């Protein structure tokens, strides 16, 4: 299995699945670093000046502008697409840009007549640059100097490309006290030994690099930073790794929040990243509020005494389920890796702290690999038993799928020498980013097409209100009973039930302009909602005293639903 370093370098560079900015072939879809992406966003907006514009919502600690691209008229009910909060997740940025490009090119039909779509294609540009650096590494932290290992020094021990292949992968060391074994089905992967089955670990797992500060730990405090996708306040990990010193410390997360405050018309967000709720929609789960130590009763979660919400509120569940079903129908994606945890990430924050309809998808993952006929017979089954429980199933499948495309994404374990180290280290394992980003070519192109369809569909589901069924009844001499339905002709409810509770986003304001009439019942100004989608409505009634022939005026508006008016002639 030993490969000379030169060969390893040759292998890995030749087979890197399109993760690099290639100088040729500008027409084909490919991954872009910050400079190329920013230029593309700016040029796209310039080509569609009437319908698009770009604003900077934050500047990263590394000095990179976080852009937001508006597609469609300002101040309409809007969808926001957020990508690349997780640095190595480059596919999200490309999906965002492709969707913007195609919708601006007319691919959304009449969508832009009623909806606006905002795109933040790269929320964590400092981290994403790791995928374009040499050596290439899966960087998640931004450019803020931090003390990740809490040794009161910052950025003192980063990765080193010991095997010289231009990529940072894993490193293992033979260790009689180690917890790891080689994956029998895929030697490039390691799995935990299971002592209850009599297994004894043989390896310790590290990341590729030296112990630069001689503290016995390897690469524990590299360049950067705060992981923007761990820095949002919902379920924030205080004192957690790469979480920042406090929630919203990163200018990127803070900039996004201020952007949402300034754009209350954003009714829904679509987040491309490791957190998913479209393959498996979020559900309301039994109350897990804080237990009173005396009464042993749990207070209701989502209240002062009960503490944070641990799952969505029940009233919002049917919408999450419905959108998940539509996503699967539109994209054909029904199975895939489980969602990453919800802790300080932008997806869960968008719903739990900002009340938005929030949907998340990885965008891409390796399709199911063809059955392994070459190893049939002697080989173990790829699933079942210990193999399924070891957590490597997704990686094994991805590696096989890439091989079926003629691409090797595993760096073979290669001995490296580290000066001053007596132990023998081996560098190898799966390359960074290959589980997240499809290779350039047909797989990337089909991903962009599939995701654009869903972005367009989701933007078409935004709430839209209308008045219906006005009834004016003469109750008696100069007394009128007015009844009207306020309907939501969009698909998404006018607000999440949770947003309604926290007034973010706010509900619909109804104002009855009495024009001199006297109000006898009902409210001249009131706030109502949420109203479910698909033409569901709520009935409003008033009684007024006014002369026959008078005309009142009724208006309803909220940023997420638009504004409508209704003239009410009394006759």
């Amino acid at each position, binding site marked *: 299995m030993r490969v000379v370093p030169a060969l390893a370098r040759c292998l890995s560079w030749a087979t890197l699945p399109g993760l690099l900015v290639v100088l040729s072939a500008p027409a084909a879809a490919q991954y872009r670093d910050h400079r190329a992406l920013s230029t593309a966003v700016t040029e796209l907006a310039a080509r569609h000046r009437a319908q698009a514009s770009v604003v900077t919502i934050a500047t990263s600690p590394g000095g990179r502008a976080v852009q937001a691209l508006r597609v469609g008229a300002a101040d309409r009910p809007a969808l926001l697409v957020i990508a690349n909060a997780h640095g190595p997740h480059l596919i999200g940025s490309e999906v965002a840009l492709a969707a913007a490009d195609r919708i601006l090119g007319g691919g959304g039909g009449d969508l832009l007549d009623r909806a606006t779509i905002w795109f933040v294609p790269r929320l964590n540009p400092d981290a994403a640059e790791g995928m374009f650096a040499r050596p290439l590494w899966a960087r998640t932290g931004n450019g803020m100097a931090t003390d990740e290992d809490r040794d009161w020094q910052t950025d003192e021990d980063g990765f080193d490309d010991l095997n010289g292949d231009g990529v940072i992968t894993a490193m293992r060391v033979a260790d009689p006290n180690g917890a790891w074994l080689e994956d029998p089905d895929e030697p490039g992967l390691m799995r935990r030994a299971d002592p209850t089955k009599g297994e004894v670990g043989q390896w310790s797992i590290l990341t590729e690099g030296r112990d630069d500060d001689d503290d016995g730990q390897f690469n524990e405090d590299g360049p950067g930073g705060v992981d923007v996708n761990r820095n949002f306040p919902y379920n924030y990990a205080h004192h957690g790794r790469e979480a920042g010193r406090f*929630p*919203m410390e990163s200018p990127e997360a803070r900039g996004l929040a201020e952007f949402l405050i300034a754009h209350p018309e954003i009714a829904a967000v679509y987040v491309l990243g490791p957190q998913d709720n479209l393959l498996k929609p979020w559900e309301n789960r039994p109350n897990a509020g804080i237990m009173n130590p005396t009464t042993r009763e749990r207070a209701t979660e*989502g209240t002062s005494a009960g503490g944070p919400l641990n799952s969505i509120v029940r009233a919002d569940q049917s919408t999450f389920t419905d959108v998940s079903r539509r996503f699967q129908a539109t994209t054909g994606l029904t199975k895939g890796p489980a969602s990453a945890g919800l802790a300080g990430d932008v997806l869960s924050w968008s719903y739990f*702290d900002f009340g938005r309809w929030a949907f998340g998808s990885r965008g891409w993952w390796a399709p199911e690999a063809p059955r392994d006929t070459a190893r049939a017979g002697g080989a173990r089954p790829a699933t079942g038993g210990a193999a399924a429980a070891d957590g490597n199933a997704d990686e094994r499948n991805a590696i096989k799928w890439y091989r079926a495309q003629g691409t090797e994404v595993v760096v073979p374990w290669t001995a490296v020498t580290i000066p001053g180290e007596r132990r023998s280290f081996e560098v190898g394992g799966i390359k960074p980013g290959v589980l997240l980003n499809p290779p350039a070519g047909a797989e990337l192109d089909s991903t962009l097409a599939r995701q654009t369809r869903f972005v367009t569909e989701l933007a078409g589901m935004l709430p839209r209100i209308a008045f219906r069924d006005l009834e004016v009844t003469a109750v008696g001499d100069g007394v009128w009973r007015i009844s009207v339905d306020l309907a939501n002709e969009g698909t998404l409810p006018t607000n999440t039930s949770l947003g309604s509770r*926290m007034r973010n986003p706010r509900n619909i304001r109804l104002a009855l302009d009495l024009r001199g009439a006297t109000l006898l019942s009902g409210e001249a100004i009131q706030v109502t909602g949420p109203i479910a989608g698909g033409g569901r409505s709520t009935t409003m009634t008033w009684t007024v005293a006014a002369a026959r022939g008078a005309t009142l005026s009724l208006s309803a508006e909220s940023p997420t639903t638009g504004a409508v008016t209704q003239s009410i002639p009394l006759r």
Partner: protein
Amino acid sequence: MRMHTTSLTLAAALIGATPLMAQQSATPLGNLAAAGSPRAPKVHLTWDRFYDHAAIGEIGRRLQAAHPNTCRLSSIGKSHEGRDLWMITVTDFTKGEADRKPAMYIDGNIHSNEVQGTEFSMYAAWYLCEMQGQNAWIDSLLTDRTLYIVPSINPDGREHYLKQANTASSPRTGMVPRDNDGDGLVDEDQLTDLNGDGHITQMRRRNPNGRYIVSPEEPRMLVQAPPGTKGEWDLVGSEGIDNDGDGRVNEDHVGGYDPNRNWPWRWQPQYVQGGADFYPTSLPETQAVVNFVNQRDNIAGAQSYHNSGGMILRGPGSPQDEYRPQDVRVFDELGRTGERILPGYRYMVVWKDLYIVWGGELDWFYGARGIVTYSNELWTPYKMFETSERSSNRYDSPQYEFDRLLLFRDAFVPWEPFNHPQYGPVEIGGFKKNFGRTEPGFLMQAEAHRNMAFTLYQTWEMPKLSIDSIGVRTLGNGLTEVTAEVSNIRLIPTHTQQDLENRITRPNYISLTGGTVISGYRVTNTLNGQSAEQERNPARIEIRNIPGRSSVTVKWVVRGNGPFTVTADAAKGGVATRRSR
């Protein structure tokens, strides 16, 4: 000039620089300073009024000018409306480096209406400056401690409270405009001084079926009609009208959040914690304090003054949080002494004894920074008649009696008729904003002093390192063993357990110079001479914590004969140095 300072009627109105200027030139009359008071104060201040933003800056400048080696004025940031968040740093600047001494952080007025924390914290700055050089304890305190005093971390709200018509409870929020009622309009239905008397008081309306009657004992006070009898009045809320025509009164006053629910420790959104605002540190004032404190690892203690109720509060604010038992013992000891210093005050835990708070300031100080932090709720009705009785036999509230007997009715606006656009004929009257939550003038200095005394006691008990002994023993072969015993001579540990468990501030460093260090050790058992070697960087032994009133011993094997110098350096406990003989 003295006439102004004794007029309580003018206490709230005469804010600003005028009374300050007037007193500047006066030298104190009288011959003998009372015990515990400055003998010859250079800056003359009166502690029976509330100072506006301009006056806070002016006081800071005067203190700095009069005491340049003790007091310095700076700004830690700007408020939403662009006011400086003034900070007065107090220490003996001629000795040591201010930012390396163990520091006490003090602020006040986070809630706009809770104004006297500003005066109380400025009193501490003034008192320390004026007492330095005449009191050995104060001199010692300022030699090795620093106080960062931010009199108001909410100067916008303070200015509104002082200069606009308000109640004792308005505004609590800062001045960032917010839509409180979710109707898309911002601050559109505020409290309104209907009768133009400069006060927001209460409205009452006659109603033959009302719930209230005029108290037979106290004609200014309404009491509930006795069971089985009809009342004559309804209380219909604070002075105001329906400004926006939505049928509701005063539902969207200025601001619309609680600055003390905006801190980045266990922050929760609006549906869990009312007033949280959009996200932790969304407010510029919160952000300024967080950034300042994050840059000062030497802050070991903190106090944030609120009102009211007579409490010495510690966290946690939420039942989900927990203070470490080792730390609770320290909090308890300080808190119990605080109850002695502050008669009428009770030492309490926020969530258990008061109410649940998510994202509160004191929890951020402790949770994120491991700082021993209290919040004193200033002013308690106990002070009125120095009794815990909330009501006497004769009155439902002793406030009226106190106002009558001690303030000569200065705190109350008599009921006057007013024709309300929505409610019809009403009467407007009630207590003024400067009564009920703040000390009356004649008690302010006493209470400021007691609260300062508690805070100075805490400041004193912050960690202080001492190198008790250095032992030198010849090992032969040109080697010498140097042993040093280093103690923390005060109550508070160099690292709270919260700090230790989360690795917030660096370990204590005990270093040796004067020879070539071959190896270094922590002595784990001084009786039996057991030691643990520190392999890396042996000249600088790392000690994770030195608890209060305890010591550690370290030793080195050194080539050389000395003399040796041992330096002990704690982030929150200062630096101590000693030379061997």
